[in-house]
């Protein structure tokens, strides 16, 4: 292994097909594992409650509720890949939901309400990012602070009251965002799938995704290589804020009602989707595809468990079991390589 500057570069030996498949599995072992877990879970559902799972109705219901945690889990995957965490995004979703509702009531303009909700969500995320990347507050501490602050803020703004927004239904924007396609497929699910494809491409093929992986892996080496570490972090948190705004828009548009508690209860399912999907808390690696499957699993779990005739409060137990199994499988396959 000496340095030589010979001109002729022998090309890599072309691998055979079987070897190619093995290499693909080895390089994508997280993705393969999560797909298998998903298949097994659905096999259990289909055997346990065939009358429910062979009906399209249940999938329509999954597709309408899944995108709320889904879009946030996509952005949270970047934050977790940095080796950071954000606990405040459900509260940011609450703030955006209030801004969305209040600005629609005040102006009657759907697009203006959408833009304001997104802008406020992004601004809250930006604040997190600046606190963490610039000021240097550890992300778990910073976002505990902003989690309480924004939830309190919404309660103060809304004076603890809800807001009826039935007029949202009349707008064409409503149909575009959360309307139904033929067959009853909810538009928010279409948006979620489109965003999921975009996020997957960014995660593995875009320079931004590569930089997130580097910063999460080794901040100092990322800096030495000329990657703007601070900017990468700020963008990740801002993106999660933006997606929380989008989740708020979807949810409030779907139910045409605002509650001051909007977003509560989404923290753990969204993070669970990320962890089930194979993105570890240590940073520097992960899988956006895994998160998407994780969202499909988390999103169909509760209804699935209920449909199988098991009582609803077993859901948590099953969540816990699944997460534990998934992270154990990952720990094992990442250890022996």
């Amino acid at each position, binding site marked *: *292994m*000496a*340095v*030589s*500057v*010979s*001109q002729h*570069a*022998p*090309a*890599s*030996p072309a691998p055979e097909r079987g070897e190619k498949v093995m*290499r693909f599995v080895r*390089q994508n072992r997280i993705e393969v594992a999560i797909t298998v877990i998903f298949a097994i879970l659905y096999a259990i559902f289909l055997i346990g409650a065939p009358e429910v799972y062979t009906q399209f109705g249940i999938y329509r219901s999954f597709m309408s509720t899944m995108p709320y945690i889904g879009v946030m889990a996509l952005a949270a995957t970047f934050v977790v890949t940095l080796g950071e965490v954000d606990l405040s995004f459900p509260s940011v979703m609450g703030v955006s939901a209030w801004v969305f509702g209040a600005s629609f009531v005040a102006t009657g303009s759907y697009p203006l309400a959408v833009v304001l909700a997104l802008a406020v969500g992004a601004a809250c995320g930006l604040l997190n990012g600046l606190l963490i990347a610039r000021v240097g507050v550890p992300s778990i501490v910073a976002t505990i602070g902003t989690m309480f602050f924004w939830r309190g803020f919404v309660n103060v703004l809304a004076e603890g009251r809800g807001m009826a927004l039935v007029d949202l239904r009349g707008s064409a924007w409503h149909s575009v965002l959360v309307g139904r396609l033929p067959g009853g497929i909810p538009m928010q699910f279409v948006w979620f799938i489109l965003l999921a494809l975009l996020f997957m*491409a960014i995660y593995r*093929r*875009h*320079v*931004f995704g*590569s930089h997130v*992986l*580097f910063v999460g*892996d*080794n901040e*100092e*080496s*990322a800096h*030495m*290589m*000329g*990657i703007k570490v601070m900017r990468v972090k700020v963008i990740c948190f801002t993106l999660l804020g933006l997606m929380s705004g989008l989740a708020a828009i979807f949810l409030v548009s779907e139910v045409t009602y605002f509650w001051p508690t909007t977003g509560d209860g989404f923290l753990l399912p969204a993070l669970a989707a990320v962890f089930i999907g194979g993105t570890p808390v240590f940073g*520097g*690696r992960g899988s956006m595809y895994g998160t998407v499957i994780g969202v499909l699993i988390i999103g169909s779990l509760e209804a699935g468990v209920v449909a199988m005739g098991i009582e609803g409060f077993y859901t948590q137990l099953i969540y816990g079991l699944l997460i534990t199994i998934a992270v154990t499988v990952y720990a094992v396959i990442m250890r022996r*390589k």
Partner: protein
Amino acid sequence: MNQNTSQQTPIVELRDIHKSFGRVHVLRGVDMEVGRGEIVALVGDNGAGKSTLIKVITGVHKPSGGSLLINGEAVDLQSVQDARRRGIETVYQERALADQQALWRNIFAGRELTNWLGFMNIREQKREADRLLRTRMGFTSRAITVDSEVQGLSGGEKQGIAIARALHFEAELIILDEPTMGLSLKETDKVLDFARGIRDAGKSVILIDHNILHVHAVADRFVVLDRGRVAGSFRKEQLSRDQLIEMMVELHHTGQLHVA
């Protein structure tokens, strides 16, 4: 890179460089130059100012006084990236690579080949990385490919990848700060071979290494730094290994440099 670069113009020239941190005067008027295709070893006791000096050259620290010339042109480096754009690259042992990422990502980190939307040309990056591994590094086994993660490599291989990467991006001067620290004997030999390879490719090296044997084995010239000043500069022909060692010991004890 530059129009007026001739064989004679040194790549880097330092004139009366000073550097203070508050009241601590670390560099006290350093004059030094590095020519093309030579390995210059920077030697001196701990705290002599070696690391500070190379940080001035690589844009980490701004000098408090004096001037820095790159390819004969006086420059005021703003950042590490600025120095890199001018062909000066530092290879740090532990900080150079990200362990969990594939080699092809590491080789192109911060300098990805992208389209206008910022999506990477992964095929091209992998092809280039593969060529780099095979020609510069001589990795021909199937065990190490562009998709291998860095964490599977030995210390010497990591060092080699970092050096190959710097060469690939047309570095004119590669600075190796303690490149053999923590490496086995065999690995150390490989790294020293890499240093020779850089010179053979017509580029230059500044080498800092505590081990005088390593230094003497590869360097063309030794610059002795003592408490922020250049105490002496010697060509390899002027000084045998034993004389160099003796000189360093004496400098350490008496603070005086006696040339045998």
